[in-house]
């Protein structure tokens, strides 16, 4: 363990991270957002999930630095009287959770199917890749809208509101697995021709062990790079769905549903309900994408070997 830490400390990875100001800044902002949102129950001044703590009389209060502001609500309140800062902290937590778990699901599906397609080849490969093509020909949002709308219509909004977070993870996770499957398959095709794979086949190892212990670790760098981009994409998809009213319910808002709920009031002057969550969303997606770009450059085998 200590040895691996030592290796990491001496690695070119860390060296290049320390020399890249954009990477450091993005990473710090991301860590700040993540830790703030996951510590929300401890640091948020109000609990937006507690109906008893919300007073409808507090609704539509502008940020505290404005004339009609209230010092209790630093970023103002929304139409239901919830403190914007607290709601945003909780909302960011939901957005990040959905993004991470949706990507985990994509990873799981994509790696399993991509490995199988690349390693076994032949008919399995053709079948899985055509399936991926079909899946990719529907846009994520379209699939999600259809599935979520049907679910809401057939099981009722009540049940949907309880299961919204799982449904979103499931839908976004399933809709985007081909991205991973294709990347993994491409790397597997390159790796399985190398002699170290023949060497373990000569030993007699089974295909499962060869795939997961030998080939998979060598395909991790592209997986890592697309994972960052995919987290940002998943957060965006969730926000888009919530904005369309198919995502998180109003009583458990994510960043997207907050933007949506404020959108109705933006013309009546309550700009802060939409603007603040939108800024957080943009910042979050931006830093993840910047980190992904940096990672892609660092792990590019043409720039850096082994």
């Amino acid at each position, binding site marked *: 363990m200590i040895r691996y830490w030592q290796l990491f400390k001496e690695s070119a990875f860390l060296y290049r991270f320390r020399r890249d100001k954009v990477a450091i800044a993005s990473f710090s902002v991301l860590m700040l957002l993540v830790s703030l949102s996951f510590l929300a129950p401890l640091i948020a001044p109000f609990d937006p999930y507690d109906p008893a703590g919300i007073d409808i009389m507090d609704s539509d209060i502008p940020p505290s630095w404005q004339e009609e502001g209230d010092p209790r609500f630093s970023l103002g309140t929304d139409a239901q009287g919830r403190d914007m800062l607290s709601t945003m902290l909780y909302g960011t937590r939901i957005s990040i959770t959905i993004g991470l778990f949706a990507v985990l699901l994509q990873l799981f599906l994509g790696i399993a199917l991509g490995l199988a397609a690349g390693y076994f080849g032949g008919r399995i490969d053709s079948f899985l890749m055509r399936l991926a093509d079909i899946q990719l020909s529907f846009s994520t949002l379209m699939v999600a809208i259809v599935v979520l709308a049907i679910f809401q219509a057939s099981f009722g909004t009540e049940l949907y509101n309880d299961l919204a977070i799982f449904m979103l993870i499931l839908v976004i996770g399933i809709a985007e697995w081909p991205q991973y499957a294709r990347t993994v398959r491409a790397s597997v095709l390159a790796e399985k021709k190398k*002699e*170290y794979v*023949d*060497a373990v086949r000569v030993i*007699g190892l089974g295909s499962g062990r060869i795939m997961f212990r*030998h080939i998979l670790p060598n395909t991790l760098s592209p997986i890592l790079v697309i994972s960052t981009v995919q987290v940002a994409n998943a957060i965006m998809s969730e926000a888009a769905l919530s904005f369309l009213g198919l995502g998180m319910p109003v009583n458990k808002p994510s960043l997207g549903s907050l933007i949506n709920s404020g959108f109705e009031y933006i013309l009546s002057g309550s700009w802060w309900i939409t603007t603040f969550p939108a800024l957080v969303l943009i910042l979050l997606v931006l830093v993840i994408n910047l980190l992904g770009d940096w990672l892609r450059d660092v792990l590019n085998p043409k720039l850096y*070997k*082994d």
Partner: protein
Amino acid sequence: MSGTEQPSATRDLVSIKNLSKSFPLTKGFLEQLHFQGGRLVRKRESVKAINGVNLDVKRGEALCVVGESGCGKSTVARVVMGLLQPTAGSIEYDGQRIDNLPPDRLLPVRRKMQMIFQNPYASLNPRMTVQQTLEEPMRFHNPGIGNGELRDKVRTVMDSVGVDPSWTERFPHEFSGGQRQRISIARALMVDPEFIVADEPISALDVSIQAQVLNLMMDAMEQRSLTYLFITHDLSVVEHFGNRVAVMYLGALCELAETRTLFESPRHPYTRALISAIPKLTRERPSHIKLTGEVPTPINLPSGCFFHNRCVYANDRCKVEKPPLLQTDNGSQVACHGIEEGRID
């Protein structure tokens, strides 16, 4: 197994019988269709990498297989190791047919045969330490082995191939090409095999390292009484390494002889051309035999003797009849009508 079983000491360790391997050229269905004489026919093409090779590896010998690029020598190695399925023919190991065994019944044979690969930069998993790489075959074939025993074994084997045993926690990219090839040899030796297939093990190495690795392989052969099937294209290596040499051309054997016999009196016209091409440090003008033309494509093999269109001795019989491998008076086996008929001395 047949009733005429020989005692295992005199039996050939590996016998390759009438082996053929062809690789289909994968084309789309539409590309396979051709018009022929006004009719639509479906033609499937394949690369015929090995065409009826018979070869026996005797226990304790080092049998070298030589030939130019694309003559199927590496394919022979891969089929023998079970990495490829033969199209026709069979492989026997110690009297047991192994090419059609299911994976679980093949395991006891697998631990007796190992392979050393050509490219030491690709044959070690870059994400595994040397320790992990070396442990793997041992752990797999001896599931109950203890950690201490395993560690000792890794140390002994590392020592015997001349790599410092204290480097086991390093990754392959921290080693030079020669060291990697030593580690690759160590991996093959881990399970104490009796038969090793070496597929051009030194061709990717620096010339100064080649001799060291060859010596290492010869030492291992002596100490562990190994049997080698050594694939190479380097005749000067063959001269020092093998007991017997098999010369391949277009996926078939031309000549099989004791090393010394082959170098002193090559019989087959192709072998003669090969031997005459070895650079020599002598005053007299080298008398190269210059072959005309190119090696024919293994997709459309020539009829008769595969060598007939480049052979100066070829006659009409050579163009239609494929010569079998026949014993000659000096002990070597040659596949040539000219030798058989006495046209060529």
